[in-house]
């Protein structure tokens, strides 16, 4: 499962919620992020390393890294690999990797392939980069195949491409929030993946949805109220502002080109401990509407 979308739509939380669900349903799951350096995972709180680290029963997190991936690849596949060990530390190699469009991306996809196909995990959930970068990422195997006709790079690109095309194994999940721009970007990306990359796409996840709590008559009544109570005025203010947000979201949703498969995740209110970030409890709450993705519990 490749989870992507515009920046700020909650990709990381959604990916974490999906990973947790997957693990609870009995699949050995690895959640992979694309951070460029060692950072802590914002939800599971562990340092992200190249080697998957267990954070929950059947759930590990890790981070893909092009250099580590190449190193591992060489170690496993190349004869006399110890001869090349020193190169990875060298500037020439780093500059080469940075200068070759798609090289890092292909190596990262290669690592995802390995995790998915031969590492003892049943499912890989990829907390992928946002729309612009993920387009480049998914186009890399195809571009590589066009430029490179033979050799290990060609062979690997082909394997990866077939995995991406395999609708039984790979699925792109595009996330958005109910705002016009985010929805538009998500639909564009979903169409791109489906039509140009020929991948299985869906569902489109609409995150942070706020539904109308009040009828228009109720709203009218509240708006017309005149009261000296500060608390009451504040409560009415909160009601009005929520209603306005819900109306704007409704509009954005209505303006949306139909997509066959849309899953709504309500806005989850932060709890005391969340401290302005996503906590495990929030992730549990978020996971609820996502259950349908994993079928009925066996």
């Amino acid at each position: 499962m490749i989870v992507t979308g515009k920046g700020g739509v909650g990709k990381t939380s959604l990916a974490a919620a999906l990973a947790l669900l997957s693990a609870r349903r009995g699949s050995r799951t690895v959640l992979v992020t694309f951070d460029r350096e060692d950072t802590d995972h914002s939800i599971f709180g562990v340092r992200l390393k190249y080697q998957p680290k267990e954070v929950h029963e059947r759930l590990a997190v890790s981070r893909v890294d092009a250099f580590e991936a190449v190193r591992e690849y060489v170690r496993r596949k190349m004869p006399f690999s110890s001869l090349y060990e020193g190169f990875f530390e060298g500037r020439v190699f780093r500059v080469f990797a940075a200068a070759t469009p798609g090289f890092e991306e292909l190596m990262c996809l290669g690592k995802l392939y390995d995790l998915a196909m031969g590492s003892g995990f049943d499912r890989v959930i990829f907390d992928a980069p946002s729309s612009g970068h993920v387009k480049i990422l998914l186009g890399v195997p195809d571009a590589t195949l066009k430029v490179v006709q033979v050799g290990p790079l060609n062979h690997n690109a082909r394997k990866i491409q077939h995995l991406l095309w395999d609708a039984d194994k790979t699925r792109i999940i595009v996330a958005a929030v109910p705002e016009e721009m985010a929805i538009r970007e998500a639909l564009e990306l979903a169409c791109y993946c489906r039509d140009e990359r020929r991948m299985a796409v869906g569902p489109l996840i609409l995150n942070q949805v706020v539904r109308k709590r009040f009828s228009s008559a109720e709203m009218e009544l509240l708006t017309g109220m005149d009261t000296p109570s500060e608390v009451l005025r504040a409560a009415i203010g909160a009601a009005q502002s929520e209603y306005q947000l819900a109306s704007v979201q409704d509009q954005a949703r209505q303006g949306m080109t139909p997509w066959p498969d849309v899953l709504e995740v309500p806005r989850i209110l932060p709890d005391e401990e969340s401290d302005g970030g996503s906590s495990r409890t929030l992730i549990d709450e978020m996971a609820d509407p996502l259950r349908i993705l994993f079928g009925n519990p066996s």
Partner: protein
Amino acid sequence: MSTRLDITALTRDKKIIVCCGSGGVGKTTAAAAMGVLAATQGRSALVMTIDPAHRLSQAMGLDGLSNDPQRVDLDAPGSLHAMMLDSKRTFDRLVESYAANERIRDTIFANNYYQQMSSSLGGSKELIAMERVFEIASAQDYDLLIVDTPPAQRALDFLDAPKRMIDLLDGTLTGLLLKPYGLAARMQFGLFRESSAVTMKFLERLTGFEILTDLSDFMMAFSSMFDGFKDRSHKVMELMRGPGTSFVLVCAPARMSLGQADQFAARLTSESISIAGVLVNRVHLPFATSGDLADADLISELAPIGLLSDKSIDGLTLIARVTGAYTSQRALVRSDRAALKQLRESELPSHLVPHFNRDLHNMEDMEEFAAALYPYSVP
């Protein structure tokens, strides 16, 4: 203890404001609003954006923004202009102006590697944005240039990416590719235990193709114009360090987003660039200044709602709904406040902009946002 960031002083006094921040925090909108603010202050401002919301360009009365500045219709003492950066076209233009002759220019344009790099390679957008900033700042057609940096995973990418590009375009690779097996290359890398000839063989073996042919052709053509290019990138950095330039980090009121702020400031400082402060966007502010009430008190305060109800409205249901909305609002306020605690512990000046509960997409919205950039009196 964090101090106030006075955006109005920046839009009044500075020549360049660079808005940084990760994707989805409302950077483009903030940049546009600063432009409106500057125009209100009587200055001529240009907002340079990378990937604007379509409706934003419409709101500015522009049918999609072009690579050249267009005037925005705005009733203000100053003037507002906007443009969208087309990185491929700017890159092409750069090649045109630095290529020694037409043959070299055409070789570069036709090169496979150049085509990929100018349109998609990480860093090219950022590098080109910097180049365009320099071009516009040098022309001095505007009092203030506001730069909306490309969406990035991390705010620092705007600075790091051009560095990587320069590194790549620098003599290292050129020398290696032009004379891969030659003495020059070996001397250059004498400090490393690798020999470049072996490295090249290794890379060819690893990749299985002559990946280097295109790159080598490109470098051959590019090396003639590289000095001009590199010289310019140094000038861009000088401009960024100058007293007329200010960096503003736009954040969401979330732990992750604000957690970057100190790191970002430190990084800028290490480049001798000063950061003006942090603009925290979409903050949920309380509707009342009073403290939190217990639920029971809240319900008694809300009682008048029940009494007001007409036949079609059930008073108790309505009280429950209002309570629900109020509780949600308080949770959002509390969460934002908790996230903002990090900022209070930092030395960075900050300014909060409230959550508007809607998409901001027309000129009136921009003016409303601009109004929220004035210093406020409530803490």
